[in-house]
């Protein structure tokens, strides 16, 4: 469990240096046409809101590295060793000792990395309910979590969404709990983004939430969002338009077997 040990060590460092932001190695730059790499470890939208923390963004067009550390504890989620790093081509976010949904979801460590337009999520000691989770789940692996009368949560592991401009967003673990009509509570852990030219103003993210984008705003209903053509305003996307324009980029996830008994027609 090398990753776990590494992150537990990072946790101690993070607690000591919580909330610090280190701007490191601002070495000579070369111009880059890519959008900046970004990383943050925790965010949540819905009845419980957590602004993306800790959050870093590589300085655009410069070969520099930024690191942010932190820890977090509230009724929704606890995690230590929050570590986010980003440079001009690579971003990484990780956390240790993650506990959420009253420990129905736990993990010793979660780490997501985005580099060269490719994303990787690594889990250590992760469990959803009584079920152990493999270390490297396939992109967009979705698992239901029974919350009893509160309904059923959906957990997407290694969530990967590529925008129309080629930018890749990776979230190690994305939890969605329906709480009312069209509304949901979301929790994202280990979110990173890299690549993309940022030149396509109609870049579309069809994901269930948009925590990956940090400042792009809160979306309590888990909506897809569309960057408006005329400026910074963000409006909920009309998904029918996305389909009609053949702009659906997210790959449908492979199914996860459920332990449900349904007598079928034989």
């Amino acid at each position: 469990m090398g990753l776990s040990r590494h992150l537990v060590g990072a946790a101690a460092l993070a607690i000591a240096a919580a909330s610090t932001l280190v701007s490191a190695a601002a070495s000579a730059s070369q111009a880059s046409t890519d959008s900046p790499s970004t990383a943050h470890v925790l965010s949540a939208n819905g009845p419980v809101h957590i602004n993306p923390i800790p959050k870093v963004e590589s300085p655009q067009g410069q070969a520099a590295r930024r690191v942010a550390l932190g820890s977090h504890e509230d009724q929704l989620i606890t995690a230590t060793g929050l570590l986010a790093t980003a440079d001009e081509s690579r971003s990484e976010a990780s956390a240790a000792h993650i506990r959420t949904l009253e420990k129905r979801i736990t993990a010793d460590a979660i780490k997501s990395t985005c580099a060269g337009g490719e994303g990787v999520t690594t889990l250590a000691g992760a469990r959803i309910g009584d079920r152990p989770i493999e270390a490297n789940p396939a992109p967009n692996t979705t698992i239901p979590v029974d919350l009893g009368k509160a309904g059923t949560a959906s957990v997407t592991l290694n969530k990967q969404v590529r925008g129309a401009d080629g930018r890749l967003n990776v979230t190690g673990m994305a939890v969605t709990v329906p709480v009312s009509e069209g509304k949901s509570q979301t929790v994202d852990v280990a979110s990173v983004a890299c690549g993309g030219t940022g030149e396509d103003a109609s870049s579309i993210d069809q994901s269930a939430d948009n925590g990956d984008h940090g400042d792009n705003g809160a979306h309590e209903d888990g909506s897809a969002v569309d960057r408006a053509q005329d400026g910074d305003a963000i409006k909920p996307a009309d998904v029918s338009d996305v389909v009609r324009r053949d702009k659906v980029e997210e790959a449908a996830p492979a199914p996860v077997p459920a332990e449900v008994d349904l007598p079928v027609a034989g």
Partner: protein
Amino acid sequence: MSQRAARRRPYGGISIVAVLMMFAAGSSVSPEAGMTFLPQATTFTALGGVARDTAPLSEGTGVVVHPVGDRPVHARPGGPPVAVLPSLQLGNPTWVPVVQTKPGWLKVLLPSRPNRATGWISGAGGGLRVARTPYLVRVERAARRLTVYRSGRAIGRWTVGVGAPKTPTPLGRTFVLALLRGQGESGSTVMPTGTHSATLDSYGGGPGTVAFHGWPDKSVFGRAVSHGCIRAPDSALEALSRVPLGTVVIITR
């Protein structure tokens, strides 16, 4: 990093699940009056007032959609809701195929009776996850053949068992509804579809759902012997188990 956010405990001392239940309870106050009393669009229900699929041999758009929360289903764009598509069913997230669009609306196949039931869901306002599946599944009844396609190319073809003459496998377009582990008469993986036996209202206590599943006696493969299900070899089920939910299944003569 925001220290303020890190210290925030908006519901300190209260179970987060209880908090979420509190919000869920509020969902009965729906912007669409009467929605609380609408039937759920699941494999267990029969829906009235819904349109049938008018292109039962078409491959569709290749797009599948998952409602993050319960989603009203309308018989026509802008019409009154006739059902609710739940976010999860059979322990799986609900993914249904999009077969047509109009501005602001998506026409999807439904998992309920009658067979080939369709409905419209709003594409606006968020709460939907959309994705693309490169897969397509075809079942040819007369040839007793199952073919799985990926990006238009056949990646596997198997001889399967189909419905007997008195309990035929229903024709038309449906979709992969769920993946269930270790169920069925063979103890194999079971993949229920969105269609049902047209001659059996129920079977074995279930709603007569047509599914892909295995069978212990290999002699059934290549014969019309089932109650409507598609009995498939293990290798076919292994391939099918990688097919995303919502992927279109086309059953032809």
